[in-house]
Every structure is written in structure tokens, then in C-alpha cells.
């Protein structure tokens, strides 16, 4: 018991790192995902193909391999390009890889959200003289955003759990800190169990938060 008690602050520090990474990655992923998701629906074939390739590549390869490509692969390219800085700090490598990955999943979420809006909405907007961009911005996206909150929440949770992979490039997030404590205490059961519970507390809180947001917007939706 005292073991858990003593290691708790250290583990919580790791949890903070975990949240920070997942949150930043989802944030960047949302921006990327919006761009790529709109690209998937573009009238331009080339843009559509590029967006599809991006999504397929990032969803069709393991996240760990993507992390390795950024962490170990990019420095090699940087070196060959003659860049003065070739080392990418683990945190940045992780953030880049996770953001790119998340962008692909979020793109599909946005695409589905946009496509779920009845096409009469786009037609009504266009018939009033709005451009495609104006119709998206003022009519389609505001409605789509409400619908994508639950799947975005799931994406956030998935990403948060995946950050445990990052122990392999030496980021001292929650899982890595568990390993470190066990290396000196030899108490794997208690520590891994505690680590698991902390993850659970995080994911549970997020899903409650998402439910709450969804209900708030539903109320707004009922009114609207």
C-alpha cells in the first residue's frame, strides 16, 4: 500500500504527460482532419486522391512504425538534406507522429459528419447564392460539428491509450514511469494495476465529459 502511495505522485506526473500529448495531438489532428476531410470531398480529383492516400497510409500502418519513421527516419533525411539540426526530441517526434495519425482518423470522422447532413442543406445554401465555401462554413460545418463530438471523443480516448507506446522512444509518460518504478521495486502487479486504474480514470472522465457536451448540444439542438 505504501508502495503505491509513494509512487503515486510520480505516476500522476506521467499521466499529465500522457494527457498533454494526447490533447495536443488531437488538437492538431482536428485541424489536419478538417483540411483532409474536406479534401476527401473535394470536386478536384487530384485533391481527393491525395487526401485518400494520406488517410489510407496513416490508417493502414501501425502507429508504432509511424513513430519510428518520425523519430528515427526523419533525422536521417534531415541529415541528408544538410540540416544543422538533425535530432528530433522524443516529445516532438511523438507529437508529430500522433498528430499525423490522428489527422487521418479525424478526417474520416469529419467526412462522415459532413456527409450525414442532408444534401438539401447544401442545395438550399447554394440556391441563395452562397459559394461552396460559404455554405460549408455557415450551414454544413456548424451542423456537422455537433454530430462529430462523440466520435471525436472516442478518437481522443484511443489516442490517449496509444500514448503508452511512446515508452519505447523514452518519453516518461505513464507507462514508462510504471516500468521505471518496477525496475527498482520488483512489484509488477501492484504497479501495473495502479497504472491501469489511472488510465481508466482518464478515459472514463473523458467519456463523461463528451457525454456531457453531447447532451448540452442536444438540448441546443432540440431548441434549434
Amino acid at each position, binding site marked *: 500500500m505504501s508502495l503505491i502511495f509513494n509512487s503515486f505522485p510520480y505516476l500522476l506526473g506521467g499521466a499529465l504527460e500522457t494527457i498533454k500529448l494526447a490533447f495536443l495531438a488531437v488538437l492538431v489532428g482536428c485541424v489536419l482532419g478538417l483540411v483532409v476531410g474536406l479534401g476527401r470531398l473535394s470536386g478536384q480529383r487530384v485533391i481527393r486522391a491525395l487526401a485518400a492516400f494520406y488517410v489510407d497510409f496513416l490508417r493502414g500502418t501501425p502507429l508504432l512504425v509511424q513513430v519510428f519513421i518520425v523519430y528515427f527516419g526523419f533525422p536521417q533525411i534531415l541529415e541528408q538534406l544538410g540540416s544543422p539540426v538533425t535530432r528530433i526530441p522524443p516529445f516532438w517526434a511523438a507529437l508529430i507522429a500522433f498528430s499525423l495519425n490522428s489527422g487521418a482518423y479525424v478526417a474520416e470522422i469529419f467526412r462522415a459528419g459532413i456527409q450525414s447532413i*442532408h444534401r*438539401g*442543406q447544401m*442545395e*438550399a*445554401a*447554394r*440556391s*441563395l*447564392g*452562397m*459559394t461552396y465555401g*460559404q455554405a460549408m462554413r*455557415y*450551414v454544413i460545418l*456548424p*451542423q456537422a460539428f*455537433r454530430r462529430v463530438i462523440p466520435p471525436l471523443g472516442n478518437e481522443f480516448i484511443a489516442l490517449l491509450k496509444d500514448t503508452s507506446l511512446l515508452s519505447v522512444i523514452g518519453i516518461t509518460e505513464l507507462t514508462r514511469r510504471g516500468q521505471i518504478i518496477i525496475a527498482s521495486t520488483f512489484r509488477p502487479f501492484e504497479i501495473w494495476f495502479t497504472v491501469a486504474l489511472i488510465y481508466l480514470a482518464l478515459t472514463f472522465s473523458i467519456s463523461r465529459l463528451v457525454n456531457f457536451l453531447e447532451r448540452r448540444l442536444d438540448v441546443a*439542438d*432540440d*431548441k*434549434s
Partner: protein
Amino acid sequence: MIRVRGLKKRFGRLEVLRGVDCDIDQGEVVVIIGPSGSGKSTFLRCLNMLEEPTEGSIIIDGVELTSPSTNLNLVRQKVGMVFQSFNLFPHKNVLENVTLAPVVVKKLDRAAAERLALELLRKVGLEDKARAYPDQLSGGQQQRVAIARALAMQPAVMLFDEPTSALDPEMVGEVLAVMRDLARDGMTMVVVTHEMGFAREVGQRVMFMDEGRIVEEGPPDKIFYRPENPRTQTFLSKIL
């Protein structure tokens, strides 16, 4: 006002419009009738380029819609459309539904847009619903908001695609009344509808469309009571 020549529209192999010609004058109210699938909606949607014609030309107010250099967004500002399913913006209240396009497209300042919107809402009898959201309104009320929304762009032509066929019978009258007022004010209107009463009272010309062509046209009483084409006769015998 509107001049259509040799208009054809194909969806893949399906030829939905097979050469439509017509001229519609300023202030004229034209009613289009015809069996399901005859291409009525497709024709209307070509008139504001929601569908791109495969062949032929459409000239509205001197602007050739089918020419590649035409700015369609400008054209659509002049051609209002009212849909069977209303298509109000559910996340915006009635006032915002009406002001959105004038503010975003015409860059009208908000106060002016709201003044215009309230005036139009008064015209369609819904001034007191300005702050309501679409799903708090009946179908008839929603359709009247949709008409006000289209009018807010001050179009030269209004297209109506079966504006009352999604409505409960008791709400049809209120929407037709608004359309009647509009016609009386001199609006050029192209209306797809099977409301005979409306067609006879307000329509100056009825076109019967079948299999992608205008098969017969003329004054309402002639088309409804003395149709010459056998297909018109068959169709009318079914719906009258």
C-alpha cells in the same frame, strides 16, 4: 426573362430532359404539371444550375447560365428556390435563416438585413416567430419562412418545387396564399404543383411535362378542361 432552348439533361445513360424549349416573361406565373419522374424537378434545378445541363442553353435576365464564364453565384442570387422539404437551416432561428444569405453573400449590414427580414416575415405572416427555431414550427410555417428566406435575396425569379406536397392538408392554404400574394406583386414564378385551384387562379400558363419534354401548354382552363394531347388527358384523368 427566361429563355430555354434545346435543354437536355442526362444522368449517366438516363435521359431525363430530352429537349425543352420555353420562354417565360417577366411577371408571368407558369405552372408545371406532369407525372412522377417526368423531369419537372430536374428542369427547375437546371434553371438555377443545381443541375448542370448536358446540352442546350438557358438565358435568365440576359445572362447565359450555361456559358462557362458565368458566375453562377451571382445568377443564383437572382433566382430564388423553394423546396418541397423546406430545407431550413435547423441550427439557426427564423430570423437568422432569413438574414444569413443577405449578410454573407451580399454583405448587407446586420441591422439592414434584420429590417428586411422582419418585413418579409410580416409579409408571410410570421413576424412573431422570428426567434423560433425551425423545428418549433409547423410545416406550413416552415415553408413560409423558406419563401421569406428566398425573397431576402431579392430575386427576379422564384422557383417552387412542389412547395405544398409535404404539408398536411390544412396547411396547404396558408402557403398558397403567400404565393398568391407574391404573384399579385408581379413576381416571375415557375411553380411545379398539382394544386389545380392555385394553377387556375394564379397561373397564366400551364405546361404539361412528360418523359422529359413539354408535351402541351396553354392557359389553365384549356389544359385542365380541354387538353388536346392524349397523354395530358390520361394524366389529368388520374389526378382530377
